[in-house]
C-alpha cells in the first residue's frame, strides 16, 4: 500500500467552492433577468443572448487551442462573459452584434492577456464599449419591449434632456423597476437583477458592499443634485445599466482590486464617475465607462490600500 499514499504539502482539505461553482452561480443569478429579457423582448432576445454565449464559449475554446493552452471552457467563465454581453445589447441589435462583441471580449480582452483572472478590464463591458464605439447608432437604438417594438428613448435619456427633474415623458417608475422600458436586454429589470444579487451575496460570491456603495453613491449624488427629489433619484438608481453594472460588473474579480478597502474605493469611484457622466457628460449613461475607468485604476488602488500586516508597526 505504501507507494499508493499521496504525499503533498498542507493543507489537506479544501473548500467546496471552485472557480466553476462561482461562475455557475453568476450564471444562475443572471437567469431571472435573462428570462425577463426574453419575456419583454421576445424571440429576438433569446437569439441574441444565445449567440453571445455560444460565440463566447466557441471563441474561448478556439483561442486556447490556437495558443496551445489547456481548454478551460468548463469553468463557465466564458458562459458568464457571453451572458453579460448578451444582456448588454439592445433588443433591436442585429444578429452579428453579439457575435462580434463576444469575440472581442473573449479573444482580445480576456485571452490575449492570459485568460481568466488576467484581464484588467471586464471583458463583457469592453465588448459592449467596443460595439458602442463602432456602431453607436445601432447600439443605442432602444426599442420598447413587446412584439410591436417601436423605437423609444430610455428613461435616462429622457431624464438627461429634462435636467435636474423628472420629465413627464418617462415611463412610470414601476415599469422602470420591473424592466418594462427601453434599454439593453438585461439592464432593464432592476428587481430581478437585485434578486440575482441577493443570491450571489448569500452564496458568498460577491460582497454586498460593492454594489451597495456604488448604488448608494449614485443615489446620494443624484439626490443632492436634484435638490432632494426622491423620484428623480429613484429613476437614476433603477434605470439604465446601474443595477447590472453594480451587481455583476463592478464585482468582477479580475478587474477590480483585491484589498477589502480597495474594493470600497473602487465602488465609490464607479458611483462618482457614473453620476458625473450621467449628469454632465455627453452620454446619458455612464456605467460602462465608469467601471472600465476604475478597472484601469485597480492596480493603483491595490497598491495604496494594502492592509496593515498583523503585528506590523507602521
Amino acid at each position: 500500500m505504501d507507494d499508493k499514499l499521496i504525499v503533498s504539502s498542507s493543507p489537506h482539505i479544501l473548500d467546496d467552492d471552485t472557480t466553476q461553482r462561482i461562475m455557475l452561480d453568476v450564471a444562475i443569478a443572471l437567469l431571472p433577468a435573462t428570462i425577463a429579457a426574453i419575456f419583454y423582448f421576445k424571440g429576438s432576445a433569446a437569439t441574441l443572448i444565445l449567440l453571445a454565449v455560444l460565440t463566447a464559449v466557441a471563441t474561448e475554446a478556439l483561442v486556447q487551442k490556437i495558443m496551445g493552452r489547456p481548454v478551460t471552457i468548463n469553468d463557465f467563465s466564458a458562459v458568464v462573459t457571453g451572458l453579460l454581453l448578451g444582456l448588454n445589447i439592445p433588443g433591436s441589435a442585429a444578429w452579428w452584434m453579439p457575435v462580434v462583441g463576444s469575440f472581442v471580449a473573449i479573444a482580445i480582452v480576456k485571452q490575449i492577456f492570459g485568460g481568466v483572472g488576467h484581464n484588467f478590464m471586464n471583458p463583457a463591458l469592453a465588448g459592449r464599449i467596443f460595439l458602442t464605439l463602432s456602431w453607436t447608432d445601432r447600439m443605442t437604438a432602444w426599442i420598447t419591449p413587446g412584439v410591436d417594438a417601436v423605437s423609444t428613448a430610455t428613461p435616462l435619456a429622457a431624464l438627461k434632456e429634462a435636467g435636474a427633474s423628472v420629465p413627464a415623458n418617462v415611463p412610470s417608475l414601476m415599469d422602470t423597476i420591473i424592466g418594462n422600458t427601453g434599454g439593453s436586454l438585461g439592464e432593464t429589470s432592476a428587481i430581478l437583477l437585485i434578486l440575482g444579487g441577493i443570491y450571489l451575496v448569500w452564496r458568498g460570491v460577491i460582497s454586498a458592499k460593492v454594489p451597495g456603495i456604488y448604488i448608494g453613491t449614485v443615489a446620494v449624488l443624484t439626490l443632492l443634485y436634484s435638490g432632494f427629489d426622491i423620484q428623480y433619484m429613484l429613476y437614476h438608481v433603477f434605470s439604465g445599466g446601474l443595477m447590472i453594472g453594480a451587481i455583476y460588473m463592478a464585482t468582477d474579480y479580475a478587474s477590480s482590486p483585491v484589498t477589502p478597502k480597495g474594493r470600497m474605493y473602487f465602488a465609490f469611484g464607479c458611483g462618482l464617475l457614473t453620476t458625473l457622466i450621467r449628469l454632465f457628460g455627453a452620454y446619458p449613461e455612464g456605467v460602462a465607462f465608469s467601471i472600465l475607468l476604475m478597472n484601469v485604476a485597480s492596480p493603483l488602488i491595490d497598491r495604496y490600500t494594502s492592509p496593515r500586516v498583523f503585528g506590523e508597526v507602521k
Partner: protein
Amino acid sequence: MKMKFVTFRGGIHPPEAKEATEHLKTEKAVEPTIVVIPMQQHIGAPCEPIVQAGEIVKVGQKIGEAQGFVSAPVHSSVSGIVKAVTDVPVATGNEALAVIIESDGKNEIDPSIKPKGDIEKLQPKEIVDAIKEAGIVGMGGATFPTHVKLSPPPEKNIDTIILNGAECEPYLTTDHRLMLEKPEEIVYGLKAMMKAVGVKKAYIGIENNKPDAIEVMLKAIEKEDEIKVVALQTKYPQGGEKQLIYAVTNKEVPSGGLPMEVGVIVSNVATAAQIALTIKTGMPLIERVATVTGKAIKNPKNILFKIGTPVNKLIEECGGYATTPGKLILGGPMMGNAQHTDEIPAVKGTSGILVFDQEQAKQPNPRNCIRCARCVEICPANLQPLYISENSLANRMEQAENYRALDCIECGSCSYVCPARRPLLPSIRVAKNQIIAKKREQKNNK
C-alpha cells in the same frame, strides 16, 4: 452561561469533522511489543543516545541526552531490552537515529522516577528543571521544548500565560477529551508554569464548539482567582499563537517577534497536563494521546499510546483500514504532514493520525487565479497571498518579501479557500525559505 466569544480577524470555517471521536473516552493502547524512539522529537538539536544494543532499560529511563539548551531528552516508554540504535524512517520523510526497544511486558519503572513534591514548596527553577529533564515539549504539535519557553530572558516582562485549548484543527479531539477527563491536571500544570515564570495571570482559551469542555474547565478553576477561562469563536486558526494572544489579550505580537514581546507565554492544555503528571509522579513524557480518525479508519478513537509505538499498530487497534488509504497525515488536516508509509513511530508531537480514503486524497488541478480576493479576506496575518505566491512562482523573491512573505504563519487558510486551487501556501513556503536562506547568507558574509 453567558460569555463573550473573542476572536481574531480573518480565518476560515472548515468542516469540523470531530463527530467521530469527540464523544469517545480516551482509550489506552495495547502494550506495544516494540517501540521505536527517535532521538529528535522536538524543535532543536537531536539527542545523543546513551544506551546501547543489548542494554536493559526501564520505563522512564533516559535513553537520549539533550544536546544544548534548545533540545529535550527522550526516555524509554517500556521496560525491556534495547534491540538496536539505528536510523529508521521517521515522520519527516527521512531517516533519523532511533533507539529500538523490545518490551518485556512488565513495565518496570526506573528507580529514578519519584514525585517532585508540592508546587507550593518547589522553587521556580526546580519546576523548570523538572520539565526540562522530563523532555516535555509543546504537545499541540509544535514540539518546541517547554523549558525554553519557560525561561524567558530576564529583561522580558512576562505577565500572562495562555493555555491553548482551542483545538481548531478539524478532526482532532484529544485536547477536548483531555479537558473533559483531566481538568484538574491541566489546572495543576498551569499553576506550575505560573509559578515557574512568576506570573499572576493566566487564561485557558477554548473554542465555543466545545461547550462541555468550557463548563468543565470553568468548574475546575472555580477556586483559582488568577486563572480565567476564555470562550473563543470557533474559527481556524484560532489556536495559532498570535491569533490566540490577540483574541484573549487584544495585543498584537509584533511582526517577526515572539509572544514574550507582549509579555505572554502560550502553551497547550496537553502540555500542562503532562507537567502535572511529571511533578506529581516524576514520570517524564513517555505517553500521549492522539486522535486516530478519518474516512479510511474503521473505528476512530482517541488513543493513549506509548511514545515510539508504530503508527500502523495504532491504526490496527482502531480496526485497521476501512478502505484503501489514500493519504496518511500526522497531525490535523490543515497543518499536519502527509506520510509515505505507516511504518513510522508515533512520537511526542503526534496529536493525530488522520487517514483519508482515495477520493479525499485526490490532488486538485490548479487553474488561473481569478482574483476573487478570498485569500486576502481570510489571511489571519493580513497578507495578500495571491501576490506572494505569484512572485514566488516567478522566482521574484524580493517582491515576495515586499509582500511580507515572512509574516505568513503557514496556517494554510489561503490554500483552503482558493476556488482556483492555487498552491498558495506551498509556494509561499518556498519564498519564505529562500528569503531566510538569503538573509542568513548576507549575515554570514558580513
